[in-house]
């Protein structure tokens, strides 16, 4: 099955504005899905899809900022580009603080919007590939035996083989063998790479899998 390309979700309550933006994006070959309200979008939003969201910040019903809040609650990381009108700057600032990717003020040049959409899609792609890498590391870490995990953690903390051997009451040679197996299972080529990978997992827990405290 052919993987779906990037998708632009477009949310605007004004029929003509929404329709014209849809035409513009399709004219340059971007796939887009149009929604008249934030709620309608939430009903159809597929978090697994490579996408970004373009939304009017001022909408009746669910406002742009409220929509962003709902997405944050859903732990969605979809990049959002808000379309703002004159005098909406304070609102846009709040949106940026809450993690919106970008905002664009009406009236805007089509190329300006298209550039921002490409940038947002690129952000989404990078985030997705980073998440995928982290998932791979996690899967591989799960393959380690308890003893290998113990050795790995001490190595990452910077303990020398000799120290680890003494602490665990095994020979230095055994530590070296565990260490080699860790590197092989995790597909790491250097100590630096290992430290970096483990560090990444511990500072960036998977958003969707984070357990509530």
């Amino acid at each position, binding site marked *: 099955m052919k993987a779906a390309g990037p998708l632009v979700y477009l949310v605007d309550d004004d029929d*003509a504005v929404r329709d*014209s933006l849809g035409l513009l994006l399709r*004219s340059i070959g971007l796939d887009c899905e149009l929604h008249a309200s934030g709620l309608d979008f939430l009903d159809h939003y597929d978090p697994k899809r490579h996408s970004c969201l373009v939304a009017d910040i001022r909408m009746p019903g669910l406002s742009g900022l409220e929509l962003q809040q709902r997405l944050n609650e859903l732990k969605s990381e979809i990049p959002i580009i808000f379309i703002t*009108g004159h005098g909406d700057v304070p609102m846009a600032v709040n949106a940026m603080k809450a993690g919106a990717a970008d905002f664009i003020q009406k009236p805007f040049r089509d190329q300006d919007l298209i550039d921002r959409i490409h940038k947002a899609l690129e952000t989404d792609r990078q985030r997705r590939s980073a998440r995928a890498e982290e998932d791979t590391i996690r899967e591989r870490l799960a393959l380690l035996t308890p003893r290998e995990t113990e050795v790995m953690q001490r190595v990452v903390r910077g303990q020398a083989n000799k120290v680890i051997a003494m602490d665990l009451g095994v020979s230095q040679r055994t530590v070296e063998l565990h260490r080699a197996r860790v590197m092989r299972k995790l597909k790491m080529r250097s100590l630096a790479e290992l430290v970096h990978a483990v560090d990444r997992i511990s500072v960036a827990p998977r958003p969707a899998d984070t357990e509530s405290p």
Partner: protein
Amino acid sequence: MAPDPSANDQYRLMAAAELHALLDAAVDAIVVIDDRGRVTTFNKAAERMFGYAAADMIGQNISILMGEPDRTQHDAHIERYKATGEARIIGIGREVQARRANGEIFPIALSVGEARDAGGRRFVGILRDLSSERAAEQQTRSLEARLAHVGRFNLMGEMAAGIAHEINQPLSAIATYAQAAKRIMDHAQPNMATLREICTKIDDQARRAGQVIENLRKFIRKQEISTQSLDVNRVVRDVMNLIEADAHAEGIPVRVEAAEGLPSVRADAVQLQQVLLNLTRNSVDAMRGGLAKDRGITIATQRNERGGVRITVTDHGHGVSRQLGDNIFHPFVTTKREGLGVGLAISRTIVQSYDGSLTYTDNPVGGAIFSIDLPAERESSAA
């Protein structure tokens, strides 16, 4: 003891004198007529009310005191009542139009009683002048109309923001449609049907924007403005209840310093009041929650350097930042979180339409001073 005939007469005389005193002391006008409508009694209050002397009224037909249609129909009314006993006013009382000696028609409350004795039928009318009551009601109604107007003024601010949005939407759609069309034309084989469709959509949106402007024009046309000769102190006085209602709700005192002997100006009173109300509302907003609340807002009138009139609104709020400066008079510039930035812009337009100016200066002790300068009304232009 048998009654003394002379004593009885004396008693009657005393009773008549008492009755006279009573009638003349009454606050309400009292008029008695016989069964042919001729006046037999006309008390002092009636003399004051109608401007006729009792001596001139006795024997006259009561109808000369009436406005139409009663004036010409009254004799017929009496005849009908005598024939049928059907009362239209006796024992009921109602509001009717009366007529003074000088011809002025005015409203009265009239109640009528009937007396029958050996001398025949008499009708006693008690009349109360309602003209001052009606005038007060009229004033209340006109104040209500003004309040409604003030409400519409605030609505105008909301409208301005609404219009900006209403026009921006179709314009933004038109621009995007055109840009999409251009990109489609760059395709190797442009889809002409799509392009045609886009053109139709652009056309629709242009009409939509035009409609918004047309609606605005209609709205503005409704508000025709005529200027009158005004005493600014009176204008200030008339809007004080609205200003105080705003300020007192926030615990902010309002002081008025009115100069005497100011020349009159030409302006629309209601509009000028709206400007003042807008300025004082800004002051209230600027002082809300501030430390200098107790120092209040001062509205002062004075003669300006050019012989015209200056009205200043001085507050002790946060003032206007130096970098904003005169920009506060531009549309959509505001320091308020919830504001739209149209109040001062509209206010300045209004004042300028009277050849006046609306300016801002810093209050040296902190806060803002807004000054409305209006030229003195020229004697010749009044003619």
